[in-house]
């Protein structure tokens, strides 16, 4: 792939560009979908292409296609010619030698036969169906993603990367006295670390335990969000607030708060693009900048944001290795220019065992999964969500399932009301997410429930 990128650079220079960057991407996405207790779809998507940024001074044109041709070079250059300069364009990265990131590629996953993926999905489903006679239906999916890319530019940068990941999700419905739902998610960068049966069992157990839910009176409660619920909330309501683009755009509620205390002292959050075994770890970002561990919140203080080169330049700082090319389909996509995105959002564990958090809660709610959590007033961090799996806590014990509740809250306020951080860190990816969240259970006080 690097040879294609380097050839593209040569020909685009001949077309008149003085600076060029070529990104060649190749993604293989295998998805096996389960619905109503059956495997309904088995899909395999192979996508390959090249994106070119051609510069004429500060004028940059971007063009992409599924394969390289002289026409692509000319198209990128003609766009650059047609536009005025952008004074904010700060060139392409200089070559660096990124350090190897451990456990981000597994040959067994890269070579996994599509039929084997279907077999793993069958195992996930079977484990749920066998768990309890009250298990009625199961829906979900198993995904295997292999992403390869090569980047070269006229500064002499020439790098190539390959990563793999497998992840599965199952939502199980149980029927007894009424209906209930439970879900589980598991992901890994290698095949040996992935047990599909575990997903089926965990989802089924939660569904069965969620039968006969009790109504929750509106009011303020101590609420423990388990890792999957923390992931949903932080991906959707925190991720944009630490994104350098949204900070520049002033949509982030953190825009003027760098260096200020924004959360309880015990909260530490990082974007960790080179975390060993991280589902969204890479050796370098999609501009060729090495990935890193970037402090976002340290001891409650707002410590930083994630940047690509463009927005780093606007903020008079350096790229944090978060310039990514993302769309809905998993993988590093050649068809768009880089923008800043979070990679692995890592919330540091605390000292509590999950059970201790529960035992220490007088009258509260335990939320295993929340749903459709969106910042309805993003510049304030106001969000709204509903529970999909929750339990009542009374005098330090889980006393039964809770009916669905709506939470209309404010994240900047909530992170100042954290009263417990557990040790139980798990990786999770919300629906459609382009990042992984590594989160422990968190307890917040005075969460408004309606």
């Amino acid at each position, binding site marked *: 792939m690097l040879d294609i990128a380097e050839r593209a650079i040569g020909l685009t220079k001949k077309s008149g560009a003085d600076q060029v960057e070529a990104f060649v991407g190749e993604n293989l996405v295998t998805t096996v979908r389960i*619905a109503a207790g*059956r495997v309904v779809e088995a*899909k*395999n998507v192979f996508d390959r292409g090249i994106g070119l940024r051609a510069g004429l001074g500060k004028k940059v044109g971007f063009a992409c296609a599924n394969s390289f041709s002289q026409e692509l070079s000319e198209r990128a250059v003609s766009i650059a010619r*047609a536009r005025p300069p952008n004074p904010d364009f700060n060139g392409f990265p200089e070559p660096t030698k990124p350090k190897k990131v451990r456990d981000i590629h597994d040959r067994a996953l890269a070579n996994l036969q599509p039929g084997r993926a279907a077999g793993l999905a069958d195992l996930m489903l079977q484990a749920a169906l066998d768990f309890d006679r009250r298990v009625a239906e199961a829906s979900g999916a198993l995904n295997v993603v292999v992403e390869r890319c090569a980047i070269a530019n006229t500064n002499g940068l020439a790098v190539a990367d390959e990563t793999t990941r497998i992840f599965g999700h199952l939502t199980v419905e149980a029927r007894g006295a009424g209906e209930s739902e439970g879900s589980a998610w598991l992901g890994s960068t290698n095949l040996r670390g992935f047990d599909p049966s575990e997903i089926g069992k965990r989802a089924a157990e939660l569904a069965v335990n969620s039968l006969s839910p009790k109504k929750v009176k509106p009011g303020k409660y101590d609420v423990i969000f388990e890792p999957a619920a923390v992931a949903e909330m932080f991906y959707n309501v925190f991720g944009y607030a630490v994104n350098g683009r949204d900070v520049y755009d002033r949509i982030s509620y953190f825009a003027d708060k760098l260096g200020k205390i924004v959360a309880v002292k015990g909260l530490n959050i990082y974007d960790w693009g080179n975390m060993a075994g991280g589902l969204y770890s890479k050796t370098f970002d999609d501009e060729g900048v090495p990935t890193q561990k970037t402090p976002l919140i340290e001891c409650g203080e707002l410590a930083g944001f994630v940047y690509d080169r463009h927005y780093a330049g606007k903020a008079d700082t350096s790229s944090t290795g978060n310039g990514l090319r993302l769309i809905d389909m998993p993988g590093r996509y050649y068809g768009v220019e880089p923008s800043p995105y979070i990679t692995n959002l890592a919330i540091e564990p605390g000292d509590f065992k999950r059970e201790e958090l529960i035992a220490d809660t007088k009258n509260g709610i335990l939320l295993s999964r929340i749903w459709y959590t969106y910042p*309805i*007033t993003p510049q304030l961090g106001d969000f709204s969500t509903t529970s999909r799996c929750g339990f009542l806590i009374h005098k330090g014990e889980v006393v039964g399932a809770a009916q669905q509740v709506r939470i209309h809250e404010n994240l900047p306020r909530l992170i100042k009301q954290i009263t417990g951080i557990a040790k139980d860190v798990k990786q999770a990816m919300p629906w459609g997410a382009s990042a992984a969240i590594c989160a422990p259970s968190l307890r917040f006080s005075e969460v408004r429930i309606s």
Partner: protein
Amino acid sequence: MEIAERAIELAMKLGAKYADVRVENSRNETVLVKDGKVERATSELQHGMGIRVLFGTWGFASATELVKPAVDRVVKTAVSMAKAVKHRAEGKMAGAKVAEARTQAGGKIDPFEVDLSEKINMCLEADRRASVDEHVKRTSATIAAQELKKLFLSSEGARIQSDRMITYAGVFALAKKGDVIEYFDDLAGGAGGFEIVRRFDMPARAEDAGKRAVALASAKAMPKHRLPVVMDQDFVALLAHEIIGHPSEADRVLGREAAWAGKAWWAGMIGRKVGSKLLNAVDDPRVEGALGYYEYDDEGVPARRKQLIREGKLLEHMHSRETAAEFKVEPNGNMRAQSFKYLPLIRMSNTFIEPGEYKPDELFDVKEGVYLKGAKIPSIDSRRYNFQISAKEAFLIRHGDLVGPFRDASIMGIAPEFFSSIDAVGDDFEMRPIPNCGKGDPMQTLHVGNGGPHLRGLAVVAGVG
């Protein structure tokens, strides 16, 4: 055509009960100006093929190489995946008319014939006009166009060539006054050409966005009320999208989207009352110029108008050939995929609440109420039952007069309660573009149209959380 025929032939030879192929060529062009600078000027060309094979379970594979060995490999992959499944689905399809057709939704002015520098200048001018005073801190303007040429072939003999053009224009302004930050955006888009951009009048819209952002930054936050609410067409469009369009998708009704997108609270309620007699809702892919326009879906089924709700009674869902077979009804043409890289899913096309007989002024004839203008961001539960949607602007209605604007308002409601509370529906219908409707795994983002008239009902209006 030859490649697609070869793929179908091979799939059937390998034992598929049914197979179809989509071969696509597309081009996209986007200009984005932000704060007076051209941030993006891009061109994207894509081509490829996706094949779907039925073995009870669907097998699917796609590739961007359209040469014989690659196509054979793709077909074999789709077949091998479906065959490897142990817990196979039944996968019965309702019969559908086998169509041979050529459709074109072009528009009057080809956006790719308009010079790139003209689009850039239009965005620069709009961006400049959005900066109405020193309180405006961020501005942007964008123009985008997409051309898609799609060939659909099926093992039943369908051959449909569908060509269509989509064009967008959008403006944005963000203002800051004291500590209050507010923004306003406006978007036009639909099936058609550059006439959509010209009609939108970007400079005027941008200036209006700037003024409204400043007015909102000067406004008070909306206090909490339970009052009659009057919603404008833009707000009703998102409401129709979230709590009528999505739960009308038959895969949700059957629980097949339970893992992610969710289910539908009105499952099993066809023929029953779900709202007031004034509530009439439709999904119609053939609304000319609307963003969800098409004539054949991605199963080759002719698109048609569906009366989802009539006089408050639930009548019909949106179907694939598979769900139509389960419901024992005719397929009604709602299967769509984002591109050849994806397997089609049941998706809304243009879903809207039909106009009523009230003049818009009559809706404001209440002692006390809230007027919500422009939809912002939704949060809906997994059965589309319990909803919260924020508004761009809100006004208090006092004896027919508007007081405001107020900022940061949203409404909370329970779908059947809200539907039953509808007591006035305006005659001033409008369609709006929604370019980013998400569903599926992997996620597919689709263009849809949504709309409605001014409408009045009862809901809790919430302020800042």
